């Protein structure tokens, strides 16, 4: 039997060495102190964000209960990562639900095999200062309840394909957003810049984000899109992208279609883009909130992710549920009637 624990220890060791050698991590607090690095320019004068990037992170969106500070020490962060890597690599116990899965490590998909930007933060949320989502408004609470009730009315997850998540249906994943947040694996992006446009190709769903930076107006309010509509501009060396026109189905962390998202991309060194976003949705939260996560330079290419086309698993899941229903119906039909 292959010893996954041994593998994770070896990989964890590599991480420790790299993390400590680099002397810590990139954070908002440290950015201003970082040695002055000049971002190269594209031929038409834009700060150059081009290339392949990965936003894998072990840092949770919200600060964990019991943690009361904004930053770990380098040693604490490394310990946290090693624990997480070991847990992911640990052999699952046969007969448990976690065991009913292919092994991420075999396919290079576990987080310890992804490029990792150093991050000492205890949460991705940087504002509010407690690292947690702000309270919901009354409208936000009502919507949350209404959505939960609608889900209940729709039945079980395998009753209909529409009861499965947008992610399982290959329609929208956390890596696409926006905002773009890492999932379990393939957290890769390709940024390409041409005059008037920044394009981000998201590996998952092979999803294109075309962001005009030519100052054009936003789409009319009648047009709603799952990924909203984005408009970008440069503020110094930072790309600022404003996105509105979301649909009601998007629902990022419970957001409404009125969400206004502002993303900021700053290349802080050759290997790192600092990605920061602010969510402003007064229909849902009592105040805007912001989060930050560094992206690490990665190796390409992005191979095609034709998810919907290859989604046999979803088909099999639904077919399996119907086969189960049939077995149960036949079993109860064969019982003597009361």
């Amino acid at each position, binding site marked *: 039997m292959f010893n996954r624990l041994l593998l994770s220890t070896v990989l964890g060791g590599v991480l420790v060495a790299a993390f400590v050698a680099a002397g810590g991590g990139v954070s908002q607090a440290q950015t201003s102190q970082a040695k002055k690095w000049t971002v190269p320019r594209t*031929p038409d004068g834009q700060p150059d964000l081009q290339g392949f990037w990965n936003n894998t992170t072990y840092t949770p969106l919200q600060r964990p209960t019991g943690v009361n500070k904004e930053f770990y020490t380098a040693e604490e962060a490394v310990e946290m990562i090693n624990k997480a890597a070991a847990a992911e690599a640990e052999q699952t116990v046969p007969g448990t639900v976690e065991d009913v899965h292919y092994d991420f490590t075999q396919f290079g998909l576990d987080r310890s095999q992804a490029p990792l930007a150093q991050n000492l933060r205890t949460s991705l949320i940087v504002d509010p200062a407690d690292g947690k989502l702000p309270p919901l408004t009354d409208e936000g609470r009502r919507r949350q309840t209404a959505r939960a009730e609608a889900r209940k009315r729709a039945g079980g997850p395998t009753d209909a394909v529409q009861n499965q998540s947008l992610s399982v249906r290959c329609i929208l994943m956390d890596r696409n957003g926006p905002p773009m947040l890492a999932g379990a694996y393939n957290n890769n992006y390709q940024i390409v810049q041409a005059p008037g446009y920044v394009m981000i190709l998201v590996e998952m769903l092979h999803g294109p984000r075309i962001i005009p930076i030519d100052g054009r107006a936003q789409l009319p309010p009648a047009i709603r899109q799952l990924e909203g509509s984005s408009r970008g501009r440069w503020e110094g060396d930072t790309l600022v992208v404003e996105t509105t026109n979301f649909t009601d189905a998007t629902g990022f962390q419970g957001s409404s279609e009125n969400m206004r998202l502002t993303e900021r991309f700053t290349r802080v060194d050759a290997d790192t883009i600092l990605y920061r976003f602010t969510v402003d949705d007064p229909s849902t939260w009592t105040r805007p909130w912001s989060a930050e996560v560094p992206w690490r330079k990665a190796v390409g290419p992005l191979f*095609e992710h034709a998810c919907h086309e290859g989604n046999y698993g979803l088909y099999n899941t639904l077919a399996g549920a119907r086969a189960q229903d049939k077995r149960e119906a036949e079993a109860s039909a064969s019982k003597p009637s009361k």
Partner: protein
Amino acid sequence: MRHCLTRALLASAGVAAVLSLAAVPAGGQARSYRAPRTTDGKPNLNGIWQALTEAHWDIEAHSAAPGAVLELGASNAIPGGLGIVEGQIPYTPQALAQKKENFANRLKLDPEIRCYLPGVPRAVYMPYPFQVIQTPTHIMVVHTFARAVRTIYMSDHKEAPADSWMGWSNGRWDGETLVVDSTGFLDSTWFDRAGNFHSDALHVVERFTATSPDHLAYEATIEDPKVFTRPWKISLPLYRRTERNAQLLEFNCIPFAEDLIYGHLRKEPAR
């Protein structure tokens, strides 16, 4: 003095008229139009482009015909088209039989109906805009339908690591022409709604040439020894979408096809 000015004006107008005539392609052949350059000195193909043909229905010359859906009547009927193929598609006899079967069963088999990626070259002449985002190392082509993306590698050419729906494209410049050589296709896409198809041996070489500020001449040579007796060509003009603020809108069609694909697996079947 005024007389000389008028003659000068007339002369320059004449020259201007000749120039603009020269820029319009005659019979699909590119005149020697020199496109504006990108900063790395290459023809600038950036922009939003769209085909204006009936090829998405049937790439061969065809007459008007009924559609496959009764309730859609004339709005889904097939308009006649001159075709974009030079001559007829040279199928082998077995492949021609397969094409006919595809056509007869197109409601069940056409991958477009299921919101599957359209492949190459179908994506080029689907009736929706596509955007070219051009850099020295990568030319990205983003299509409206199913948000299909093609990456054209302009350097560091590799073989396709595995087969895909949109293929693996290696590009180079041949004077004013972008030449794109694509292989590594799955056999899953069609060329149109009429059941014209290919195998995983498909090899497509495309040529994009600017013929005016707002036109591209597009040609593709299609080769597939498992399906066709010889290579064959298609050609059509591509038009720039010149509306101010022209842009691609999101066409994530998966939700529109799910009941077709999974509806029979509902706990209570869809009608």
